[in-house]
């Protein structure tokens, strides 16, 4: 049972009621059933915690965790909250630890979260101290379930979450493994922005090929994308994960590894860039896709566009907003030219992204629309496959993957 007083309009998913984006009770229930439920959440990259003791703090749902390499071949994800008085222990974003000690009363934990020391546990000169039945083994830091998959660290608050490979499903695995194949990753940098829009709008956006060449005027103007380009929208069997692949406008398969593919990207441009290096790209991944995304529900969009590789990590902040943390990465063996290329391609993304600003701005406009609307208003999601089905499609004029998402959403939310 949930505490949501609202009822979903009708039986289908061709109309999404505005209240899923604005209602506080819906949001609270999402935290329980989705973020802290049987789902894998993105906790970071293995490359970010290279040595035993290296750690980073991050937020999963609304809860802060410490991601730490607790042994050579072990990464622990621990809730950043002392079991004694609830103090958030680690304040820095990253660093190196030998153990985890709360500053308040010096309770100390091992890197895997085991409680190791409680000062004056036996009292002072026999007086005071903890009760005899206090059990340190029951008071370690809350430890999440963890899986490291091709360099990405996944964590779950639930023990029932199935193994990651099964969670993501076969169809999405190829989209995932195409970007993070197991090659050692290197961080190119981070960007952080607060987007005043409900978190679900971000994952809908990347499953919505319909908006690609319409909202993002930059892409067709400078020839990076055409609505008639071959593309594929994939979903897993549940509908919760989604992946958009876009093939070059011409000559797929013509370029070999490391070859320049700029001419396959930039066609029919109405304007020429003054400096083409902004989009100059070389082939580096399996397949010829110029855009390949893999949205792992609910926390992450993994995306390749030309030579920019990135994790977009979503942190929900109430129904009306979310933080988006961008981690751009490359590979350890990248040369200087590739590192510069990735930085240049970074111009398309983030808070000042030549392309992504359109999304974060228009999603904020959507949220403002929902907030101001009358009771009973709903978004229409009827493009593609007769407007009702949720299958995988090979064209852009479809919203089927948004319907797929909401079929799963209704199920998991009991709506």
């Amino acid at each position: 049972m949930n505490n949501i007083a609202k009822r979903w309009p009708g039986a289908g998913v061709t109309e999404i009621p505005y209240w899923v984006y604005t209602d506080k009770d819906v949001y609270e229930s999402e935290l329980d059933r989705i973020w802290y439920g049987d789902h894998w959440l993105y906790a970071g990259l293995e490359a970010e915690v290279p040595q035993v003791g290296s750690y980073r703090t991050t937020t999963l749902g609304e809860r802060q965790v410490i991601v730490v390499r607790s042994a050579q071949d072990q990464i622990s994800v621990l809730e950043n909250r002392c079991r004694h008085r609830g103090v958030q222990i680690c304040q820095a974003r990253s660093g190196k630890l030998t153990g985890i000690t709360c500053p308040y009363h010096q309770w100390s934990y091992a890197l895997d979260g085991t409680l190791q020391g409680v000062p004056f546990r036996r009292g002072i000169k026999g007086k005071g101290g903890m009760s005899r039945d206090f059990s340190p083994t029951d008071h370690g830091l809350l430890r999440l379930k963890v899986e490291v998959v091709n360099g990405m660290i996944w964590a779950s608050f639930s023990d029932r979450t199935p193994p990651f490979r099964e969670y993501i499903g076969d169809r999405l695995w190829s989209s995932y493994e195409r970007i993070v194949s197991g090659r050692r990753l290197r961080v190119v940098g981070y960007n952080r922005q607060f987007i005043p829009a409900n978190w679900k709008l971000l994952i809908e956006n990347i499953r919505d090929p319909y908006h690609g060449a319409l909202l993002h005027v930059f892409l067709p103007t400078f020839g990076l994308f055409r609505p008639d380009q071959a593309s594929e929208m994939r979903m897993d069997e549940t509908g919760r994960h989604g992946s958009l692949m876009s093939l070059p406008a011409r000559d797929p398969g013509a370029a070999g590894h490391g070859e320049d593919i700029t001419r396959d990207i930039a066609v029919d441009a109405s304007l020429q860039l003054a400096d083409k290096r902004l989009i100059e790209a070389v082939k580096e991944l399996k397949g010829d896709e110029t855009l390949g995304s893999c949205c792992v529900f609910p926390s992450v969009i993994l995306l390749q566009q030309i030579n920019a590789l990135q994790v977009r990590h979503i942190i929900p902040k109430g129904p009306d907003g979310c933080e988006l943390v961008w981690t751009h990465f490359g590979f350890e063996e990248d040369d200087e030219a590739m590192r510069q290329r990735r930085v240049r391609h970074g111009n398309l993304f983030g808070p000042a992204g030549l392309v992504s600003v359109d999304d974060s701005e228009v999603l904020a406009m959507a949220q403002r629309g929902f907030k101001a609307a009358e009771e009973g208003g709903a978004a229409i999601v009827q493009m593609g496959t007769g407007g009702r089905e949720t299958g995988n499609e090979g064209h852009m004029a479809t919203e089927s993957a948004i319907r797929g998402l909401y079929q799963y959403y209704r199920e998991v939310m009991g709506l």
Partner: protein
Amino acid sequence: MTVLQENPITAFDREAIRAFYDAYFDALDEGRLEEWPDFFAAECRYRIISRENFEAGQGLCIMQADSKGMLTDRVRAILKTQVYAPRYYRRFYSGLRVVKASGKEWDVRQNVLIVQTLINKPSEILGCGVGHDRLVSNESGQLKFVDRTLILDTEMIRNSVIYPA
């Protein structure tokens, strides 16, 4: 600090540098974006980068250009292709300091505060940071940026950065 004693600059140079920044921020605050690339030398670099990335030696920027052409491309995108709610930026700079002077080249720092005003909204701080810049005097005696790097302390951007600073 003894930097200025080691690298003396004339009052004339200091005045010229101040006038250059006044003109730069005036052009931006007034929205004369098409003038923005002209403040740069032909070979130049422009960056708005988070302090986090800058200090870690990581290259990713918020806004970046490797050439005057890329600045022009950014301006065309802002004016012609990007979709965003209308807004004003006003940039406040202070503590202009010349940390190195050699011949016709100056390394200059200054603190920068960017205040954003969206339609129907109160003004708010978009970001604060420090400029680490290099200026040159070209053959006609005009000052130009060869490097303009604005390092932002601001950890969480309020949605978008549309205009340069």
